[in-house]
């Protein structure tokens, strides 16, 4: 086929494009994924009697705030990376700083505690539940975000996949943090931060396959 013929085909009856559509579709996918993860959590374990009470409330709020800040920064990156071209390094630097901050906070908390207490701090209540639940709940927002980005045009697929995994993992962590108590900072870092990073690694591996266009 001649290129001129193709141009005639593509240029016939062009529909107007809504400029806010791409951004709205991504935000909707984020909201749907988060709501789905939250509802799945409620369906599996019911409504917690009083999620914001008890002595570890500070840690719980810190964990939730950390997860949600990852979602916000990662979401900003995804909106940019949905468009071909440079996505900008700003959000990636912020993500790196956030992760560095939380992992160093965990290390510092361990350093100030006596080695005898480490075991109790790290293997707090239900550590395994957090470790397995976060990737499980992350699967739902992961699917919705991949679905939305497949309709866009990301050009750096592994990086975009990694950030999708990170955002989905952080949403999974937020949903889990809402239900589970965290007994110590190292516990929070290891069993919440660890699975989130794992989700990002899985996302980076799946990205080039799932996001191709």
């Amino acid at each position, binding site marked *: *086929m001649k290129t001129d013929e193709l141009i005639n085909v593509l*240029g016939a*009856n062009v529909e107007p494009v809504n400029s806010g559509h*791409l951004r709205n579709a991504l935000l909707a996918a984020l909201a749907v994924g988060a709501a789905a993860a939250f509802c799945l959590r409620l369906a599996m374990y019911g409504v917690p009697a009083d999620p914001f009470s008890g002595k570890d409330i500070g840690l719980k709020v810190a964990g939730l705030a950390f997860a949600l800040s990852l979602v916000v920064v990662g979401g900003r990156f995804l909106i940019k990376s949905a468009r*071909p*071209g440079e996505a900008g390094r700003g959000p990636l630097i912020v993500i790196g700083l956030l992760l560095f901050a939380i992992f160093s906070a965990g290390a510092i908390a361990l350093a100030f505690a006596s080695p005898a207490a480490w075991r109790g701090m790290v293997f707090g209540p239900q550590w395994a539940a957090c470790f397995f639940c976060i990737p499980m709940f992350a699967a739902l927002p992961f699917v919705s975000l991949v679905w939305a980005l497949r309709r866009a045009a990301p050009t750096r697929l592994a990086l975009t996949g990694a950030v999708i995994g990170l955002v989905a993992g952080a949403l999974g962590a937020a949903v889990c943090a809402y239900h589970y108590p965290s007994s110590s900072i190292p516990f929070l870092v290891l069993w919440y931060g660890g699975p989130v990073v794992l989700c990002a690694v899985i996302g980076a591996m799946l990205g080039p396959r799932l996001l191709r266009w």
Partner: protein
Amino acid sequence: MSLRSDEPELRSLMLAGLDGDASAHKSLLAKLVPSLRAYFKGQLARIGRGAADAEDLVQETLIALHTRRHTYDRSQLLTPWVYAIARYRLVDYLRRTKAFNAHAPIEEAAEVFADDDQAAVDSTLDLKKLMAKLAPKTRKAIQLVKLDGLTVSEAATQSGMSESAVKVSVHRGLRALSLLVRQRRPS
């Protein structure tokens, strides 16, 4: 002509096209072709591929520029967006055709986007064959709106579909075609 100096003109064509101006959209695509062709020829020559491959890539890129035009941010420059799509199509093409050499640097657009006014070479893309693989409803919609040039409402009347069904079918059809275009290798 170089893409960079034509940026204001190309961008205004793109903006008009996004608002539904078909002739502006068509003229934008036509104006991009020489630069795209020069870019792909230059890149392919470095790995020993010929002009028909470059023409395939030009056409794949045109389809991508069209089906992904909602990803253009109206507040940004157009040229980097076009270049990013062209570069993505090239990398994808090389990977797909197993000729990808990870060490071959892909040069910056500014250096390689030169003009190429050579008469069009036929690509290996055969629209009729590809169309045959689409679902009947989708094929009908593409045929009426994109090939016969009917308006959406005329196509809706003639095919008995609703206007929104026609729009959705055309949209879906172009996406399916761009997938088929990429799967038809190797020539």
